[in-house]
């Protein structure tokens, strides 16, 4: 289990990480979200011992992370880096050896992983002969092939098309099943919502959201309403408690100040009988993300 307690780090006068705490258990996925410069990479760097926190502690299995723990870690940096003149096999074996694995142990697994991520290329191909997307997949394989217990992925989905992003999701979920504790950062809330067990959102280095997706969404109440009824948008906008009305063809999307306003809208919409759609939901993660970013600007 990885535990971060009251972690802070500043660079000069800038507070990059401010009193951050969270826990990731084995077999659990934590999605770390936030705008660029929110403190995600700095947090990763402190976990990896690249820099020391000013205050707070990081514990892995109850002790501070040392070089002895490095072999249990898989790390994918935000900016990818491979040796262009190495072959796919040499590259994967080199990084695996740096994680303390023998060539003989990793070599038989390479084809299986290349297949898992559908890499277009042979293990004997040079890295610079592969397309950018395939290079990224090789980098992911090199990060995960030694089946680390703690996996840190900085923006793993960036640059991947939806098909490959789905394959990566499958790969991450497979490692979760194997018992790995996984932290990843992403700007794509769809991926985050789909695979994260819990989410932490950072803004200006501080935790502004924390919990499971349901917990976070429920904090905001069912304030999003989707409606298809024979009403004019002006009438909907005049309802007390409706803060925004957006029309998409015959369909309306309403933002409510309070979820109890939904009943007033329902009664008005069903005055003349049957309506095609009435769906009152909590805001999506994407919407919550935007709201929190907006809050920070105010």
């Amino acid at each position: 289990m990885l535990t971060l307690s009251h972690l802070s780090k500043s660079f000069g006068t800038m507070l990059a990480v401010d009193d951050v705490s969270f826990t990731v258990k084995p077999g659990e996925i934590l999605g770390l979200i936030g705008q660029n410069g929110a403190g995600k990479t700095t947090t990763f760097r402190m976990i990896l011992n690249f820099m020391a926190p000013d205050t707070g502690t990081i514990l892995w299995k109850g002790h501070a992370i040392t070089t002895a723990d490095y072999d249990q870690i898989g790390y994918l940096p935000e900016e990818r880096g491979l040796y262009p003149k190495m072959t796919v096999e040499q590259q994967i074996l080199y990084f695996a050896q740096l994680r303390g694995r023998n060539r003989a142990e990793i070599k038989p697994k390479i084809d299986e992983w290349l297949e898992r991520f559908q890499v277009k290329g042979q293990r004997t191909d040079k890295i610079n002969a592969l397309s950018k997307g395939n290079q990224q997949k090789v980098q992911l394989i090199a990060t995960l092939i030694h089946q680390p217990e703690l996996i840190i992925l900085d923006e793993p989905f960036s640059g991947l098309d939806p098909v490959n992003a789905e394959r990566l999701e499958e790969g991450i979920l497979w490692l979760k099943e194997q018992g790995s504790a996984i932290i990843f950062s992403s700007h794509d809330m769809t991926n985050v919502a789909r695979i994260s067990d819990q989410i932490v959102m950072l803004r200006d280095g501080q935790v502004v959201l924390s919990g499971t997706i349901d917990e976070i969404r429920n904090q905001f109440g069912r304030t999003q309403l989707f409606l298809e009824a024979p009403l004019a948008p002006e009438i909907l906008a005049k309802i007390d408690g409706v803060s925004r009305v957006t029309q998409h063809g015959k369909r309306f999307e309403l933002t409510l100040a309070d979820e109890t306003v939904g009943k007033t809208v329902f009664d008005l919409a069903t005055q003349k009988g049957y309506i095609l759609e009435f769906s009152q939901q909590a805001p999506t993660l994407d919407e919550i993300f935007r709201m929190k970013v907006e809050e920070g600007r105010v």
Partner: protein
Amino acid sequence: MFKFKVIFKQVFLKNIKSPAYLIMILIPIVTLGITLSVSRLMNHSKEPVRIGVLASQPAEQTELQQLKDKTYQIDQQITTQAQATKALQKEQIDGYLLLSEEKGQTISRYYQRKDSPSFDASILENQLNQIHLVTLAQQAGVAPEQIQNLMTPTVIAPVTINYQNGHQEISRENTKEVSQIISIGITVLMFIFIVNYAGMIAQEIATEKGSRIMEIVLSSVSIEIQFFAKIVAILALLVTQIVTYILVGIIGFQILKQSLPLAELLPVIRRALVAPAMWYAGIFLIIGVLLYTVLAAMLGAAVSRMDQVQQAISPLILLGTLSYLGGFLLASQTDMPMLRVVSYVPLFSQIMLPVRLANGDVGTLGASMGLLIAMVTLIGLTYLALLVYRRNILVYSDKGIFKALFATYQQHKEWHQ
């Protein structure tokens, strides 16, 4: 130790297979090959000229045919002027000497073709004069022992004197030639090694840093293991280069000894190999390259992008060039007090002290002191380089290399306050 080996092997194999490393190894071999070829051509033009010798008296003719020197070779078959003229025309000889009596005087004439190789007749002249003197002395009834004394030439033997701590030491043999070879060899090779290996490590580190591979590597191994594995791999490349030259030297000597007058070089090489200057130069070479490599690693870690590497290591190359120039100056001029002091300063001493030792300008005690200072500096600089490496290796800043180095200093000061 396993991860140290993994990084060592990767750095060593990657560089040894690179065209740049092969070119670096080949350039001195090719240069030496060209030099030997040119000298061979020059030696070819210095082959002894083929001459005929003719005298009016048969006894004199026989005496002339006994003459020997490496500058000419006498064709014993030619005994008449007709034979000589014919042989000269057919280019069987390059010229012939004709001694004739005219009015009681012996006149010597040397006939040659217009295109004959140039022949320095002064040696032959001296030999003829000696014969003439011996004849005159015999006619004057001088005793054979006195004639022998008269003919013994005066030879000036050069003696080299070294002044050590006010005492003079006379070398048992003339080592000037050996000293010159060692001095120039040390200066040139040391400069090539320093510039190439310093550039190689800085490039190696900056490439990994710039491509973010460094982050993956440093999440797998400690900074110390990675740093020292790279330095040791560079040292292994240096040793490989030296061993390659030794092997090429041995093989080349065996192949070329038939066609080139290399036997003359053997005593010089033997003397060079046992000379203390050679061994000190070897140790200074390792320490010197390590000093520059460690500093280059430190500078390589301070850059953010690959294109900043040359700018970062330029002060180091400047230092190397200055020590190179110092080495050349000391090879010819040893009485410059400032250079004598500078020769003990690390980063300069690796070239200048072995040159001074080879010239006999400094003794083994002085060289040992310089070596000790360089070793202590190497330990200190390694500590400093590791500090800067740790602070900068994952920091990407556009503020410049020297600001990054200054930031390290500031941070270090804060930690110790």
